[in-house]
């Protein structure tokens, strides 16, 4: 496979597809656990994400990445600013067409893989034949066919995350939010899962927003990468990778790959040091 990419660029919006997700001046403040002080987690986050785009977010620990994802998903409400998905404001309710996978394994241990994947469809009264068709497809897509009757406790961590992804995919979301879904996996499994994610993204044509600690993962997977500052988090740079839509982990050997990760790190280094200072407080 030959993959060529243009040099990483400071991108406004490279995509020609219509904007599907828009964040305008999103800020968020919350009370600390002891209630003694307020914490400003996010400060004026602005970004526009195009339909079918793969957008990754990297940033130092505690910079508000997961809070931002919760706000996009409608699981939390921004203190200021607005989030718009498909032209409608997202405010405290998960919009139709949005699916999310979290870092923690949230597969249901009391259900088989098949029943886990079918769970959401059954709760929404989808016809049995349609459930079977969609579940079989999602299970095959995630390479879980041989384990459909197994329970999560019999699977590895990577396979359990695939179950969670399949459970989300089966609902046919147009926007998939991933909060470090491979964070607990070893590096080799992460790479393979990343490849599967790219394949799914191409097949479903969904828009993906991925939060990750791994600069390599972001550089391999994303069309654009938003680099967040230390808390209060905001985008200090958005880097376009310029990769072709058909790509996999072999992109690591492309000379541009090193340029992208180096650029991300040069933006992040000072912010990560700030973040380490904050953690001590």
């Amino acid at each position: 496979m030959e993959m060529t990419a243009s040099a990483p660029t400071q991108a406004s919006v490279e995509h020609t597809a219509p904007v599907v997700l828009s964040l305008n001046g999103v800020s968020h403040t919350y009370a600390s656990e002891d209630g003694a002080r307020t914490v400003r987690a996010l400060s004026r986050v602005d970004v526009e994400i195009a339909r079918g785009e793969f957008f990754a977010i990297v940033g130092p620990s505690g910079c508000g990445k997961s809070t931002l994802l919760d706000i996009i998903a409608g699981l939390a409400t921004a203190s200021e600013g607005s989030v718009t998905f498909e032209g409608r404001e997202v405010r405290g309710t998960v919009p139709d067409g949005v699916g999310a996978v979290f870092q923690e394994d949230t597969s249901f241990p009391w259900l088989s893989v098949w029943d886990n994947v079918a769970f959401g469809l059954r709760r929404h009264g989808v016809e049995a034949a349609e459930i079977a068709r969609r579940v079989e497809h999602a299970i095959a897509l995630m390479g879980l066919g041989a384990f459909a009757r197994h329970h999560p406790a019999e699977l590895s961590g990577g396979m359990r995350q695939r179950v969670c992804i399949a459970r989300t995919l089966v609902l046919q979301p147009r926007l998939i939010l991933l909060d470090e879904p491979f964070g607990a996996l070893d590096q080799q499994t992460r790479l393979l899962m990343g490849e599967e994610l790219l394949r799914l993204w191409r097949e479903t044509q969904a828009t993906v927003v991925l939060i990750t600690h791994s600069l390599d993962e972001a550089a391999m997977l994303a069309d654009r990468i938003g680099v967040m500052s230390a808390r209060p988090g905001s985008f200090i740079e958005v880097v376009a990778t310029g990769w072709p839509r058909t790509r996999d982990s072999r992109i690591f050997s492309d000379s541009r790959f090193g340029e992208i990760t180096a650029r991300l790190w040069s933006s992040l280094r000072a912010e990560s040091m700030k973040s380490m200072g904050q953690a001590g407080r």
Partner: protein
Amino acid sequence: MNRRTLDPLLLIVAAIALWQVLFVVAGPDAIASPLATLQRLITLGQDPRFWMNAGATLAAFGYACVLSIAIGLPLGVAVGAHKLARDVSEPILSAFYSIPKITLYPVILLIFGLGLSAKVAFGVIHGVFPIALFAIGAIRNLSPSLLRTARVLHLSPRQTATSVLAPAALPEILTGLRIGVSAALLGTIIGELFASSQGLGFMLIRAMENHQVADIMAVTLFLFLIAGIANAGLLAIERRLQWK
């Protein structure tokens, strides 16, 4: 024969062997042999008064179990669901769980008098606290990610409670039920030992007063079998719910 069948059998054989050794060491004045105990239990089993006493104990035990679950489970779930209620109530419930309940026996007798209700009450004060405390723990240990997942899957509050939170909490709740049921049996028997004119506990205290060692051992073996059957039943359900 697989390990699951063989291991309990080996344990039973080892326990009987140890019992026989104790009999040889301590002598027939202190302990009856396994064979003599079994023979006495078979004889008692042919006496209708034994079954009347066993029926009285099982009835009190049954009531104690039902009440312990009916009080302990909703109490534990309600307290577990609210942080403030949990912070305030858990130390109090833990204290009640730890104190020797025998100290409350005079109070129970004054309130309920002699008879079935006092035995049931004594069973309940033994059974209710582990059930409530395990239910509190089960609710507290529910991962917040389950709630986030339920919201992302667009579940209603009722669907979230019945299809996600209840099955997630069930294994720990069942462990509490298993311990609570065993404790309720213990409480019921202790109640019968001290002030009752019926029941296996009453038979035990009478046998002790008359130094009928074989009767003591036979009734104890029978109680052991009841506790073992109740525990094995609940353990089997619990294992089924451990999702392999």
